[in-house]
C-alpha cells in the first residue's frame, strides 16, 4: 500500500474538561476531495484548524508526506485555506489579494503577474483584477479567496464552510466551480460543511463527524446505501424509522416483528442483536413503493396525503402505531394508477434495502 499523502493520526483536542475531538485518525491520498461533514460542534472545524495550525491538538499528530506539521508555524505550512467569512484584504485590489502569498514569498514580479493572471482566469474573474473586495458580491469574493489560496500551488487546500454565507443559487454555482477547479488542479482538498447535499455533490469521500468522533468514513454512496449507524442514516438523506423487536439473525439476514405484529425477514443488521432486543428499522423513502416488487415486505398503513411532482410522487402514510412514513417512489416504481388517501392500504419495500439499528 502506498504511503498516505496527508495523515491525521489520533488527533485529540480538549478545551478544559470538554473533549472537542476524540482521537480522530484519517489517511488522505493525494488529490482526494475529502469532506468533514457533521452538525455544528461535532469537531470537524477543530480538526481542520489543527491541520491549519490555528489550534494545536492536545495529542496526536498531523503528517504531510511523512513529516509532522505540528512544529511548523501556520505561515510556513504552505497550506491554502478558504474561510467561512470572506477574509480578503479590504485595502488591496483583487489582483493584489491574489498576489499577496507570492509577494510575501518574494517571488519575482514577472512570475507574480503571470500567476495572478492564471489564477484569475481559473476562477473566471479576469475582468475584476482592479476592483476592491468591497465592490464584489459574496460569490465573487469567495472565488477571489479561492484564487488567493491556490496562487502558491499549496499541496493541500482547506475549506471551512466556504459557501455557508451564500444564497442557494450561488452555492450551487460555486460548488460546480469548486469541482471544476479540483479537477483542473488536482489539489488535495479537505472541505468542512454541515450540508449533506454539498458533501454528496463535491466529495470523493465523506467523513461524518459526531460529537468529536468519526461516525463513518467512505464515499457518499457508502454512507447513503450502507449507513453504519442510525445517526448516519438520519444525517445523510431522508429516512423512515420504525420501532421493531429483533427475533433472530440467520446467515446475515435478520428477522423482526413490527409494532403491528407483522414479521419482516431478510433485513441487514448494523450489529449483532439478541433475541427480543428492541431495534429500529430504517428504510429510505425512495425504497418504498405502492406496488409490490419481487421480494417485497408489506406494511399496513393509512395513506394521509399524496402529491404528484411529475418525475416522482410523494405519499405520506401512517402506521397503526402512529409512525409517519415518507414514501417517494422513483420513476420506475411510480404507481401508474396514482394513490388516494384512505385507510387500510399497503406499502412495500425490499428488505435488502432496509437496515436495523439499536433502539
Amino acid at each position, binding site marked *: 500500500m502506498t504511503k498516505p499523502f496527508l495523515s491525521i493520526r489520533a488527533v485529540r483536542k480538549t478545551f478544559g474538561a470538554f473533549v472537542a475531538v476524540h482521537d480522530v485518525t484519517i489517511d488522505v491520498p493525494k488529490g482526494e476531495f475529502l469532506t468533514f461533514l457533521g452538525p455544528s460542534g461535532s469537531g470537524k472545524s477543530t480538526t481542520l484548524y489543527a491541520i*491549519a*495550525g*490555528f489550534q494545536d491538538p492536545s495529542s496526536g499528530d498531523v503528517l504531510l508526506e511523512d513529516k509532522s506539521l505540528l512544529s511548523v*508555524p*501556520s*505561515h*510556513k*505550512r*504552505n*497550506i*491554502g*485555506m478558504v*474561510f467561512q*467569512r470572506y*477574509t*480578503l*484584504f*479590504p*485595502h488591496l485590489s483583487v489582483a493584489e489579494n491574489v498576489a*499577496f*502569498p507570492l*509577494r*510575501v*514569498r518574494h517571488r519575482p514580479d514577472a512570475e507574480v503577474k503571470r500567476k495572478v493572471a492564471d489564477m484569475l482566469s481559473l476562477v473566471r474573474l479576469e475582468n475584476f483584477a482592479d476592483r*476592491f*473586495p*468591497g*465592490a464584489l458580491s459574496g460569490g465573487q469574493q469567495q472565488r477571489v*479567496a479561492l484564487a*488567493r*489560496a491556490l496562487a*502558491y500551488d499549496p499541496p493541500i487546500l482547506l475549506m471551512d464552510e466556504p459557501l455557508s454565507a451564500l444564497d442557494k443559487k450561488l452555492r450551487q454555482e460555486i460548488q460546480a466551480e469548486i469541482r471544476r477547479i479540483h479537477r483542473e488542479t488536482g489539489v488535495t482538498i479537505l472541505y468542512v460543511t454541515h450540508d449533506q447535499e454539498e458533501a454528496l455533490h463535491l466529495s470523493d469521500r465523506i467523513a461524518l463527524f459526531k460529537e468529536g468522533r468519526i461516525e463513518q468514513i467512505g464515499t457518499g454512496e457508502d454512507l447513503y446505501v450502507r449507513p453504519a449507524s442510525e445517526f448516519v442514516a438520519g444525517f445523510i438523506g431522508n429516512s423512515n424509522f420504525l420501532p421493531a423487536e429483533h427475533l433472530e439473525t440467520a446467515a446475515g439476514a435478520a428477522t423482526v416483528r413490527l409494532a403491528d405484529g407483522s414479521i419482516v425477514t431478510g433485513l441487514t443488521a448494523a450489529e449483532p442483536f439478541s433475541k427480543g432486543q428492541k431495534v429500529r428499522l430504517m428504510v429510505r423513502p425512495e425504497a418504498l413503493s405502492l406496488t409490490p416488487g419481487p421480494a417485497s415486505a408489506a406494511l399496513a398503513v393509512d395513506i394521509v396525503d399524496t402529491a404528484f411532482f411529475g418525475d416522482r410522487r410523494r405519499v405520506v402514510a401512517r402506521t397503526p402505531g402512529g409512525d409517519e412514513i415518507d414514501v417517494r417512489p422513483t420513476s420506475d416504481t411510480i404507481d401508474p394508477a396514482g394513490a388516494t388517501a384512505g385507510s387500510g392500504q399497503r406499502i412495500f419495500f425490499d428488505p435488502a434495502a432496509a437496515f436495523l439499528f439499536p433502539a
Partner: protein
Amino acid sequence: MHGNSLRRGSIAGLPAGSGGALPALVLVGLFFVVPVVALLLRSVTDPEPGLQNYAALFGSGTYVRVFLNTFLVAAVVTAVTIVVAFPVAWMLAIMPPAFGSIVFGIIILSMWTNLLTRTYAWMVLLQRTGVINRTLMGMGITQEPLPLINNLTGVTIGMVYIMLPFMILPLVGTLRAIDPMTLRAAALCGATPFQAFRRILLPLSLPGIAAGGLMVFVMSLGYFVTPALLGGTSNMMLAEMIAQTVQSLLNWGLGSAAAFVLLVVTMALYVLQLRLVGGKRPAGGL
C-alpha cells in the same frame, strides 16, 4: 418612508433636531470665534497697525527655534505615543469584552486624575534623586543619575503618558473593525507575523492611527503644563513662550501673533488629515 418624511420636515434644510445644537453653537461663536478674531486684530494692531509682530516672530532665531522645538516635541510625542498605544489597543481589541472594560476603566480613570498631580508625580519619579534614578543606581545599572527631567526626554515621557488615551481610544475602534480571521488568512498565505503586521494590520489600522495621531499632535503643539514642568529652558515650547510673552513681557501683540500662527498650523493639519484619510478609504471593506 415614514421616518424619512418625519426627518425631512425641518427648517432651512437642516435635519430635524438641529435646533438643540443652537446653545453650543452660540457658545462657540461667542467664546471662540470672537476671541480668535480679537486675537488676530490685536496681533496686527498692537502696539501699532502693521505686520511687525509677525516679522519679529519669524525674524528672530529664538522664536523660530521655539517653533521648531514645538514641532519636534509634538512629533516625537506623537510617534512614541503611536508605538506605545498600538499594542495596548490591539490587546483591547482582541481581548474578551469583560477584561477589556476593566482595562478601559483604568485608562479612563487616569484621564480623570488631575493633570497637575500626574505631572508632579512624574517629577518625583524622574528627578536626579528620584525613584527611577535611585533604583537604577541601587541595582548598579547606572553609575550616576540619568538626565531624565528638564529636557526632551522628560517632556516626551510625561506627554506620552498623558496622550495615550487619546491615541488608544480611536485606535481600538479601528482595530475592532478588523476581522481577526483576516490575519489568520495572511498567516496561511505565508506571511510571517511581521509581514502580516506590516502589509495587513498596519494599513488597515491607518485611519485610527491618523485620527489619534492628529489629535495627539495638535494637543501636544499647544500643551503648556507638562512641558513647563518637565522640560528645560533650552527646549521651550510655544505655549510656554506665549505665556511668558504675555504675562512677563506684557507684549500682547507678539503673544497674539504666536497664538494665531499656532491656530493656523493646527487647522492646516486638520484639513490635510481630512484630505489624506477621509478621501482614500478603500471602497467598501470591513
